[in-house]
Structures are given as C-alpha cells and as structure tokens.
C-alpha cells in the first residue's frame, strides 16, 4: 500500500486523463463520450497546474513571499486552457443537440447507419 501513499496529484491527473481516454474509446453514447473528452482535458489541465507546485505552495498573489509562491506561469496558462475547453465542450453539446434531433439517436454506431448516403 506504500505505492498508493506515494501518489501525488500529478500522477492522479495522468490517471484521470487516461480514464477519460478509455471512456472515449468504450462508450457508445455520444453524451458520455463528450463527457469523457472533457474529463481528459481536465486531467491534462490538473497535471499542468501541479507543475512546480510544492506541497506548501500558496497562490502567486503580490503579498505572498516569493519563496512560497506556486509557479505563476502554469496558473496563467491554464486559465486560457480552461476557457478554451469550456467553449469547445459547449460547441460539441450544441452540435450533439442538432444531430440528436435530426437522427433521433444518441449512439455513435446507430448514428453512422442512419447517415445519408
């Protein structure tokens, strides 16, 4: 069990990433695949946030002493990545609605059979 105690947030984030990938590979429901892809993205973002982040790190705001600061670069970058991720997921959901109305299914493999030739 020592192995589990040694796991850090970054390792878990990689785990979440591949869990999301597994979901995208195995789920036939479109909604669930969109969620899986979102989970992948969040896993990658969490991993990035944990870079140069010592256990006692504090947010990089002006009053924090520099020695205790978390690296501000990942924090700044990940805000952008989160916004992009949200907008793409929103777009996927909007498209899914269209597709579901048009073909009346939420299943990738049934959807393929119903596409126009």
């Amino acid at each position: 069990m020592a192995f589990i105690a040694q796991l850090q947030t970054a390792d878990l984030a990689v785990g979440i990433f591949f869990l999301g990938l597994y979901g995208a590979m195995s789920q036939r429901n479109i909604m669930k695949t969109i969620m899986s892809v979102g989970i992948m993205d969040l896993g990658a973002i969490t991993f990035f946030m944990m870079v140069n982040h010592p256990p006692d790190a504090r947010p990089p705001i002006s009053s924090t002493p520099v020695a205790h600061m978390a690296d501000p670069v990942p924090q700044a970058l990940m805000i952008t990545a989160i916004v992009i991720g949200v907008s793409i997921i929103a777009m996927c959901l909007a498209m899914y609605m269209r597709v579901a109305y048009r073909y009346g299914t939420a299943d990738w493999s049934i959807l393929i059979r119903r596409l126009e030739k």
Partner: protein
Amino acid sequence: MTLPIPLHLLVLIPMIAGAAGYFLPQRAYHRLLLLVNVAVVAVALSIFRDVRWGSAIVQRVADWPDWIAITLVADLYSAPLVLLTALFFAGTFLFSTRADYLDKTFLFLFVLLESSLIAIFLSGDLFNIYVLIELGMLIIAILIMYKQDKQSVYDAMLYLMMNFIGMAFMLLGIGYLYRMTGVLDLAGLQQRLPQLGNARAAIVPYALIMTSIAVKAALFPLFSWLPRAHGAPSAPSIVSAVLSGVQVKAGVYLLIRVSQTFSAVIDAAPFFMLLGFVTSVVGFLLAIAQKDIKLILAYHTVSQVGLIVMGLHLGSEVAFWGGMYHIINHALFKGLLFLTAGIIIEEYGSRSYAEIRGVLRHLPAVGIGTLAGVLGITGAPFFNGSISKYFIQQGLQGDLGGIGMFLINLGTTLSFVKYSVILFGTPNAPQPPQRDPWVACISLLFGLACLAGGLFGGPTVALVYGPQYSAAGALGLEKITSFVLTLAIAVGAYLLVVKRIGGLLLTVRSAKVSFNQITVLLTLFFVGLLGYTWWSV
C-alpha cells in the same frame, strides 16, 4: 535602415479589420477585407524579403527576457508559408467576389481563420501554438457546417471531437515538457532538452505532442476526419480550398518544427517516412473508390500530405527541400482544383463524376484551370508537381524506393484519370454558364502558377528557400517517357479494372469508422510511437 516590421501586424491586421468593419454593409465589408488582404500580402512579401536575403527575424511580444516572453519567429520555414497563406486568402477573396453564400458572419470567421493560421506559422511558443490551433479548430468546425445541409453537422462534430482529443494529448505533453525543462519556447526547449542527461525522459512528451500533430497533419491512421471536413457538402468551395491548400500544411509545418526541437534527443525520421508512404498509398486507394468529385480531391489531399511527410523525413537534403516545395505546389494545384470543383458543382447541380461531362467546352476557363491542376498534381512534365516529385525521388535509395514512388505516381494518375472524365464529352449542364470574370481570372492565374512552377522549378526553389538544385532531370526524355508510360498504364487500369469493380468500390466507399474506433486508432498510434521511440533511443 528602416525600422523592422513588427511580425504581429500580420496577425492583427486581418483580425482587427474583420472586427472593426463588421458594421459595414456586406459588399463594402467584402471590399474592405479584400483590401486588407492585399495589405497583408504586401507586409508578408516584405518580411519574406528580409528573411530570405537577410536573417531570421525573432521578436518578443513584450519586454520579457528570453524564453519567458512569447516569441514570434519568421525564418526560412515560416516566412514562405506566411506569404503563401496571405496570397491564397487574397486569391479566394477575389474568387468569391460575386458568390451568393457569403454573409458577414462567414466573412468574419474566414478572415479570423486567416490570422490564426498566420499566427501558427509565426509562433515560436508551444502553448501559443496550442491556443491558436484550438481557435482555428473552432472556426473550421463552424465553417464546414455553414450551410447545415445533409450530414454536415455530424462531420463537424466528428472533426471537432477528434481534434479535441488530439489537443488534450498535446496539452498533457506540453505540461510534461514544462515540468522537465521549465520553458515553453521552442528555441529554449531545443537547448534545454539535451541537458536533461536522459534522452528517454523526453519520450513521453514527444509521443504525446506528435500524436496530436499527426492528427492535425492527417497521417495514417488518423486521417478519417480530413475528407469529411475538406469535402463536406455544406462547406463553400473557398473553405475547402483553404483547408486543403493551407490549413493541413500547418500540421506538416508543426511536424517539422517539433521534430527539429527534439532532434538532439529523439529522431523518429524512419517512422514518419514509412508512415508518410503508407498514408500516401491508402489515400489514393480511397480516392479511387470515391464518386463525389470533392471527396476524390479530399482523399487526394491525404495522399499528397503523405508524400510530403515522406519527402521531409527521407534524410536527404534534396528530398527535404523537395517536400517543402511540394507544400507550396500542393497548395496551388489543390486550391485550384477545389475552387473549380465548387464552380463545377454549382453549374451542373451534381457532385458525382459520372454525371458531369464537358466542362472544357461549357466553362472554358474553369476547365483549363482544372486541367492545369490535374497535370500539376499528376506530375506531368513542365508542371510544378513534376519538379517537387523529382526532388523527393532523388532522396530515395534502391529499387524499393523507386517502386514505392512509382506506385504513388501510378495511384495519383489513376485517380485523376477518373477525375478528368468530367472535362471531356458533350456538356450536359442544365443552363448556360454564368459569366464571372474573377472566377475565370483566378482559375487561369493559379493554372499559370502551376505551369510557371514547373518551367522554372529549380530557380523557384532557389528563390524561395535558397538551395540551388538543378531540376533539368525532371524535364529529361526519360522522365517524359516514364510519365507517358504511367499515364498509359493508368488509363488501361481505369478502363479494365476500376470500371469493373464497382461493387468493391461501393463497399470501400460506404465503410465508415465510428468515433470509438477513431479513438482506439489514436491510442494505438500513441502507443506505437511511444514504443518506437523507446526502442530507437
């Protein structure tokens, strides 16, 4: 000595003009954007001149020290591509002067796509590239389902989700790189990576980032989004032309850039060379099976990108520059073919090659343009494709390489023999053609460029990239005979084989890969690349 031109002007001019002019009426907006594009071409031209006859330009966006600031880089790889993008967009704006599908939202998104593409080419920062690719992805997803007919929403959704998974891989890879080296700047990474001491440490981020770039560049087996996006029935032809002509090259360009960054620790050139060859073969095999003229062209883009990637990774200098030259050539002839295909579909009201006849007589200018494009892409002597293919061929060693190249040439010619059927015969269009001088003018101009790129192949490469190679061999008697021979075999194969296996072609055509299968392929590709780099380092 004048002040250097700020590189970010190239990105900001189209974007700001697109946003600021949005309140104008549609015609005036179109004129404004056309004017802006001319300005962008002028700026790009002057930057290209500075880079080509001066040195590479590196600019930091704010006053931060090296490797922390976001950098913009214009060098011999990026400057020609920026110029190409600017010219290409100017051409498409001119081409669509009288098109009726344009509205203001479309124009705005289109010009935004232009600036995001130029920014990808110029960017020297990995995270910046990530953001710009995502921006381009969103815009493209909207553009390919713009008319919302048939299955276009499905196509766009598949495109968006597949690329989003690819980009998640890239984000994780960038995270690993940042954790190991503490920089995101490509030049900085190139210096820091060898200092890690352990080459195997760089394998995981390399495989993650390369997987996402392989999705972008549509390498085998990750290309299934490309024909759907590029040949989408609902996308206007100028969108298809831009996607196939320039946007897919962004993936190839990133492949070069990132390989170069990792070159000191990881060299996967044989892997990508083989992959390029497989992509090329699979691309034309699928192209032969298609009926829809836009899909024939789209699958052909897959094939040609494979050829480019193969040339770039052959490890020979001539082949590398041949591949770079083929990027430009492919943009010219494939852009031309997509633009003319859009006009042909509009005129004939059909997308099937079997129902279109007599384009040369019905629409002479468009027909001649198409013919020039076909001659260019098949590598006919005196056209630009022959030069770049000749250079790539020089990098091949042994009989095996020769046979492979012959196979690719034969496949290309075969699928375009099928395509050129539409040019001949008696016209069967429902109504007399509409006259649009700009369409004719741009078709002929692009066609002329294909011819000029072939007649002055060696000098063009020297002019654009610098290295001096003689292309005289490409116009030799041996090459011409071999082209005629290939053409004869292709025509024979078309008449004797392709026309008789309609059932098989139908099966190939209607086989579809579902999203789950695509994701499995992507994961397999990642694992394969990881394994290969582990084995080779």
